[in-house]
């Protein structure tokens, strides 16, 4: 079953055609990787899918609903959550509080209820805390619950950011270069974590430069170059794809 469908999406920035008539599907329950050389338009594609940018043309269908005209907030409430290439944790908030923000779409206390501290919010707050703690236990960061999130080591900040996204209980998790800046050991851990997230029933779409990680965990890979799709296949087939080898290594084959 298709969870996300990108259909003929284009985006132009001035004279630069960042994304050109791009189409691909993400099947529910899969880990799909989006790869391509630097400047291929991967992050732009993420921004288009997650509602950070509106596409010039084409449609993006998520769970049977067209989301290409929605804001990032509306997209998130429908069960698609992203992380950022440059970690965007909330400063001056603890790890626990960061993850609690992730529960926003699953709670409802508004300004008035919050100010009056209405009894229904107590129960809600308790549930938010419990769920956040559960996620921290799953990710092994419960010891850092009370630490300011941005004071953690880089690799741990990544995990917190993923935890915050998981707190939204997304159907689709978009990971923008989850292994960027991680050492080899941390990268392996990240790979295992992503597989575990998929096993929880969360579909994953990731942009990643670490090829060994992509090949190890992905079910399918889309390759883009200059904003256009040049290949879409299983990891093993992608490794043998002549066009992919050409864009990565150049025309002059050894």
């Amino acid at each position, binding site marked *: 079953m298709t969870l996300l469908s990108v259909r003929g999406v284009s985006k132009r920035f001035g004279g630069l055609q960042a994304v050109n008539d791009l189409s691909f599907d993400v099947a529910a329950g899969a880990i799909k990787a989006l790869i391509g050389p630097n400047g291929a338009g991967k992050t732009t594609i993420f921004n288009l899918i*997650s509602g*950070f940018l509106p596409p010039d043309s084409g449609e993006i269908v998520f769970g049977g609903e067209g989301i290409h005209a929605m*804001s*990032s*907030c509306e997209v*998130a*409430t429908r069960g698609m*959550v*992203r992380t*950022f290439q440059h970690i*965007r*944790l*909330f*400063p*001056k*908030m603890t790890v626990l*509080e960061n993850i*609690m*923000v*992730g*529960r*926003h*779409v699953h*709670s409802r*206390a*508004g*300004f008035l*209820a*919050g*100010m*009056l*501290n209405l009894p229904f*919010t107590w129960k*809600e*707050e308790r549930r*938010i805390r419990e769920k956040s703690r559960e996620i921290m236990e799953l990710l092994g960061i419960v*010891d850092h619950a009370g*630490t300011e999130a941005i004071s953690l080591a880089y690799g741990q900040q990544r995990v917190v950011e993923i935890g*915050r*996204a998981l707190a*939204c209980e997304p159907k689709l998790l978009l990971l923008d270069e989850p292994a960027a800046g991680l050492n080899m050991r941390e990268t392996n851990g990240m790979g295992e974590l992503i597989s575990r997230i998929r096993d929880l029933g969360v579909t994953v779409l990731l942009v990643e430069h670490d090829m060994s990680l992509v090949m190890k965990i992905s079910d399918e890979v889309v390759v883009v170059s200059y904003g256009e799709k040049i290949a879409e296949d299983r990891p093993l087939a992608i490794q043998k794809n002549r066009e992919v080898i050409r864009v990565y290594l150049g025309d002059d084959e050894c």
Partner: protein
Amino acid sequence: MARRYLPVAAFAGLIVAIQLGTLSIGAEYHLTQLTMTAYYSLVVVGLCMLIGYAGQISLGHAGFFAIGGYVTAFLTTWDLKTNHGAVVSLLERSGALVSRHDVYGGNLLTVHPWLACAAAILLTVAVAFLVGGPVLKLKGHYLAMATLGIGIIVYRIVLGTDFLGASDGISEVPGFPLPGGLLISGDASSRISNYYLAWGLVILGMALLLNLIQSRVGRALSAVHGAEDAAGAMGIPTSRYKLNVFVLSAVFAGLAGVFLTHYNGGIGPSEAGVMKSVRYVAIVAIGGMANLWGSLSMSLVLNYLSLRGYFGTYDDTVFGAILILIMLFAPDGLLRRHLVSDLKRMVSRNPVEEDAP
């Protein structure tokens, strides 16, 4: 839960102690300035919520204060006796108008203070919604400039409108009646009750804001402050939340304007002035930005000193200087939230090891 309200109770104790203090030294006239301080503090804590927690700025809060004050002043002094329109008679029959004597012994028929207060708050909310929508799309300096513009517009309007008293403002505003025979007015006989009413209102406002900060909405606002794009990606409707907190803080300013106008018996255009807005921002800044208690205590001290005339003709200079010094040397404010833990960390040798389990 108890931890949240303990400081509130302690503050209430301080308010009682100050009153008893003035009583014991026979200086009860200080309560007048302390009561006015309370209403200004209401503006400050509302602004602190906007600046410190939601990360937005307003250099136009004196404008919202003035909207509240001027609407209630105008409606409660505007004589409707000679006006025999259908609306007036309908209002009169529904009890929305009151008849009272003016200082010359004549008879006045004016809007009831409660209705005037409601109208004042409604207008404050409407203006805040109307200007907040487009203005809050701006960030940083641009937002500061735009809100400064709002403040200046309100100031020029009240200064240039004849029926608002132009440069004289509006005087002879009646007291604001409350249940139980209480009256918000500057009458010396009700000095003590007014002192407690005003600070009671501040304490109530503080309790509401402290609750809000601890709630889901408070976390969301803090997230918007820290990383707006990431907050949006978590499903937080960032523009709506910014607008709501802007309106909320405008309502605090508007309410303060209403009650202080009834207390003072009038309002003048200086209340809408830019320097008043700067003063509120300076107090929030020195109070530690994201620190309601810091802002409140600084407001208590500085407004009181200012109202007692300790700064003399340098009144505005003091607040301008405070703003400059804070921005230069302590951009997180003097009484910032983590001041105590920061100091502890500076004192202890191995801060990191301490945190380890």
